[in-house]
């Protein structure tokens, strides 16, 4: 009995081992290739403030949106057993909502930023609610339901902003995409950290995780245990919507303007990939948000590595695809199980030899 207890514990922790191993491989590769990759140095930003610079900081910075989306996407995946492919288009919408307020000359800088964030989150919640209703109440498969916003979202964003695309000059707003004076790390990293901590607290002080898992694994049984599966699936999309809202603010604050056709392009695929890399089943059920967040940083780490070794532009996606295929295969439950089985065989052989 005791022995079994340990092996099951190992199995549970195995979910996180694949992304960790992938991260380790990337680290080792970069150490060999050029160890200065990991150096973090003091530098100065445009405003003259001291800042920390280095590839690691850049990775953490650039993966912010993806990490936040990965959290929401994990919840949607868990509860609904499907994915939201409209998050990229959603960012076009929430980003436009953000800029609509920022460009409005009637607000002061501070007021505009607060209003813009509220507006972006509201826009995100509306998008999420729209998807959520289609999936939970109308029982449309998530991929199909979110196809609507995936197709229309970028046009909606362009309509929200009207012809008024411009360069943002709101200093406070631009600090979100850059640095807050006196703080040496990019603001986006802080925002991401706050979001992650917030979710950690939500998971600790509410039953969100238990409910979403229960509904995702067996929604009929959940209903008979007093849960409301429709509501919970809906909620997962709304939460993802909030994440999309935050990402809209981060994304637009980096550049200060928006291109509806190319902003956050293909980010939905990376977010889904992050969920999968985190060892989560895309068919829903049990989930690990930590894994998905780790997955997001791995994707950015990989991208950075490819830039660093100057992969030819025409081959960039082929390289990425090869690495992703390997990672996804290794994080597939079937492969994981067979690896652990063979590993056990190997170790048991070893120990029997030792005995002999």
């Amino acid at each position: 009995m005791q022995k079994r207890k340990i092996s099951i514990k190992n199995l549970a922790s195995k979910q996180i081992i694949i992304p960790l191993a992938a991260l380790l491989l990337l680290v080792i590769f970069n150490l060999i290739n050029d160890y200065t990759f990991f150096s973090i140095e003091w530098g100065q930003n445009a405003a003259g403030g001291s800042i920390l610079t280095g590839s690691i900081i850049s990775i953490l910075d650039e993966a912010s949106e993806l990490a936040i989306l990965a959290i929401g996407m994990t919840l949607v995946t868990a509860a609904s057993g499907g994915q939201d492919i409209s998050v990229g288009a959603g960012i076009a919408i929430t980003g436009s909502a953000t800029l609509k307020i920022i460009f409005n000359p009637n607000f002061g800088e501070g007021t505009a930023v607060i209003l813009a964030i509220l507006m972006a989150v509201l826009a995100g919640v509306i998008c999420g609610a729209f998807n959520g209703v289609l999936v939970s109440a109308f029982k449309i498969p998530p991929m199909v339901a979110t196809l609507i916003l995936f197709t229309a979202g970028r046009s909606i964003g362009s309509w929200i902003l009207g012809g008024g695309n411009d360069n943002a000059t709101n200093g406070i707003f631009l600090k979100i995409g850059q640095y807050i004076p006196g703080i040496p790390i990019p603001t986006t990293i802080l925002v991401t950290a706050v979001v992650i901590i917030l979710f950690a607290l939500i998971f600790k002080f509410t039953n969100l995780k238990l409910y979403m898992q229960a509904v995702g694994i067996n929604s009929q049984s959940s209903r008979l245990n007093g849960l409301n599966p429709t509501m919970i699936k809906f909620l997962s999309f709304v939460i993802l919507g909030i994440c999309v809202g935050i990402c809209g603010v981060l994304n637009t604050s980096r550049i200060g303007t928006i291109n509806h056709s190319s902003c956050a392009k293909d980010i939905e695929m990376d977010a889904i990939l992050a969920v999968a890399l985190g060892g989560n089943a895309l068919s829903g059920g049990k989930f690990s948000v930590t894994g998905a967040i780790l997955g997001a940083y791995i994707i950015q780490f990989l991208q950075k590595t490819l830039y660093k070794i100057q992969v030819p532009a025409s081959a960039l996606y082929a390289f990425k695809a090869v690495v992703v295929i390997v990672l996804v295969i290794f994080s597939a439950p079937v492969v994981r199980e067979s690896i652990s089985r063979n590993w056990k065989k190997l170790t048991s052989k070893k120990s029997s030899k030792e005995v002999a």
Partner: protein
Amino acid sequence: MKKKILSAIMSVALIATTLVGCGSGDSASASSASGDAGSGKLIKVGIINNDPNESGYRTANDADLKKTFTKENGYDAQFAYSLKNDEQIQSAQKYITDGVDYLLLSAADTVGWDTVLKDAQNAGIKVILFDRTIDADPSLYEASIVSDMNKEGDTAVAWLASQGLSEYNIIHIQGVMGTAAQRGRSGALDTKVAAEASWNIVTQQTAEWNAENAQAIVQSVIDAGTPFNVIYAENDDMAKGAVAALDKAGKSHGVGKDVIVMGFDCNKWALEELLAQNWNYDGQCNPFQSSYIDEIIKKLEKGETIAEKTIIMDEKGFDASTITQDDVNNYGI
């Protein structure tokens, strides 16, 4: 919940109406008397374009077409938008059935047009291509009004060479690989770099027209500590992303500063950056084909022949040290 769905549907419907609304709003200002107004009969044109939301270029292009092809100017114009070739071909067939006089086409894809254009020809409909060429027999269309992307690249590279730097260390940010704009704009730079010893590429990578990717590419060069003094971005968005990375790292850019910033497409906000001396150069990709098309139609209506089928539009390159507010207003898209 039901209310939410309704509101979402409403918003979708609203977009559809506003898209149409934009165009008609613009047309009010264009009230110049048309030369053909005397005949009293409107020329029916069917216009097939890509989705105006595709890019700022396309938005400007669509607005320009809507401004020219109005009732006041003697046209009865219909518009169809799609980024998909088969949908565009369907629209073309519909126009042929409707019996338009002219078919104006910016094709999503270069192939697959032979049959439908032959149908058009048999129906006596004249075809004019704009913005994009297709792989079809030139006899199937009257004229093709295009940008010369190679020339855009050449103009930009010539401008860069005229800056007389002792050494060029260039971050080259490419568009979606294989597109005409990318090939034209990359080609000119590649040729120059291969020919000149003092021209070096620090990094050459695709950001797929995307600002965030461009920012990440420049950031990775900064992180590696490799020196550079030119950013050659193949569109404005990517230039903007690159500048965001420079700002973050405290590197100065613009006229008389450490890094020369070059972009393409002449978005209004990009030209404003030039005006503010934050960027150095922006190359035009002219979206205003409507006046060329208008001219050709008038000629054809008078029975004249078109001497040269392929018409290459004038395209400018703006230098931050010479650009004026008027330029921004006239050429910004």
